[in-house]
């Protein structure tokens, strides 16, 4: 995965719950093409029509609160969004995203600081979010080593696959 990328900011509010990310009634859908049209339907039914591949969500505090359904994080990744930048994330959503190697960046000030449609750049190694439109920087703590490993191998699934393979050899 690229550790530095740019995208257009799409803003969502604080306390976005997994129910708003992907309503529970869709959680038994298994095909990506069935899931993706419903991403963020619980907050904005037109979200997927205004979203373009590579866009970056900018949100307030506690993004991903509510149920632990990993399918919410998976659907977001499948939708083509590049990352989520927020004031803070709920714990299980954060864990789920790390496990599937979908980048989340927690940085103070991003929600009031970044406008809808702004072009932003994310640097995962440095833990930096830069608003290119306004030339303003927001700092985050870089990932701890364990999470870097997960990101590099492409998530926990691949990490385990490599270990299972090793024990079989």
């Amino acid at each position, binding site marked *: 995965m690229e550790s530095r990328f740019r995208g257009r900011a799409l803003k969502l509010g604080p*306390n976005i*719950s997994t*129910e*708003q990310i992907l*309503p*529970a*009634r869709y*959680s*038994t*859908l*298994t095909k990506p093409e069935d899931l993706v049209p419903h991403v963020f339907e*619980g907050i904005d039914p037109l979200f997927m029509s205004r979203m373009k591949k590579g866009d970056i969500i900018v949100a307030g*505090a*506690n993004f991903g*609160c*509510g*149920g*632990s*359904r*990993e*399918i919410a*994080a998976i659907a977001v990744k499948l939708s083509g969004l590049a990352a989520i930048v927020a004031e*803070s994330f*709920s*714990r*299980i959503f954060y*864990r*789920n995203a790390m*496990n*599937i190697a979908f980048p989340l960046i927690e940085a103070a000030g991003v929600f009031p600081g970044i406008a809808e449609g702004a072009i932003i750049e994310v640097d995962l190694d440095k833990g930096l979010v830069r608003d290119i439109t306004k030339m303003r920087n927001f700092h985050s703590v870089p990932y*701890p080593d*364990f999470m870097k490993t997960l990101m590099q191998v492409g*998530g*926990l*699934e691949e*990490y*385990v*696959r490599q*270990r*299972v*393979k090793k024990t079989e050899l």
Partner: protein
Amino acid sequence: MTLTEKILANGAEVESVQAGQFITVKPQVILGTDLTAPLSIGIFRRMKATRVTNPDQIVLVVDHFTPANDRRSAEFSRFVREFVDAQGIRNFFDVGRGGISHLLLLELGLVVPGDIVIGADSRTCTGGVLGAFAAGVGSTDMAAAWALGETWLRVPETVKVEYSGRLQPWVGGKDMILRLIADIGADGARYRAIEFCGETIDTLPLSHRTTLCNMVVEAGAKNGIIQADETTLNWIRPRAKRNVRLFRADPDAKYEEVRRYDVSNLAPQVACPSISSNVKPVEALGTIHVHQVVVGSCTNGMIDDLRVAAGILSGYTINRKVRMIVLPGTQKIYKQALEEGLVATFTDAGAVVLPAGCGPCTGAHMGVLANGETAVTTTSRNFAGSMGDPGSSVYLANPAVAAASALTGVITDPRHIKK
């Protein structure tokens, strides 16, 4: 070290751990449900894993869509059954044999003090009530734990919450936790452990303690925990199938924060839409008409909770504009409610008693709210759409408030019901 750190250090087989550290542990229990396990089963296969490391670590429960409500959920349950058979998993609880996973773990002694429990359901934190470390994880985590027998954890900082004073009638664990969430916010304990203690906790029945630990995730916490005491051991002794390890926090344990509450004047609390921190004392609510009342779930679905609700309803019928749904936590609790005559009280009052399981709590099955409808419920979540249409409203309350509201049709202070 704090209680949580003690258990995690033991699990990681090291002298000590500190907050922020990443560790690997072998959980005693890996919990999954029909909602999250099917995804894990697919991931498990993609991991090229063939056998689970230890089938006895695994508990699987069909509780979310039970009995199945459509072909897709039927299919989901079938995946789980096939996996259970293929892997030789003994702790599997199907329709009619179990109930809501979190209460089942407590009821069957599958969790004991000192355990590490992970589960692909956010309410896994409920297990902390027995002095265990219990935290929710995702489906990939669960698949990885099945395959490797271990999981990664970040040691959380601990917030200690100390309660003193005697609770008023009709006030309990639900009100204590709602007040706490209101004060610290829906993300006030993010990534943290909450350790409950104090004289109020010492005399608090297990059912109320369960509600406390069950709802810590509503403040963003990783786990809630209560040190095992006489109440815990009395519960565990006839049930436990494994050795109990009693840990206590060191006197010099490092807490990130200590909060103290005197509960003597605590009134019944209600969390208003659409976030659990939007809490008001019941008397400050004004007139709020309700269409549906739910008593039960893993948050307030133990026999004590049903007794409280039945106690308020007995001799009355519910308001004609209200549908009331009772959701016993487990099949055993259902049976006990039947034997004690509580089911008769509910049905006489005009309520419907559902099979033990998640029922309307998922917002997808039995008791779904229509646009513009309002519910008062003893469940744990009141986000927009959490019980049906995004245009419905959900108020969270204790079983006494919920039952009193079913009688009047508006959210009601149970202290105003004449008995």
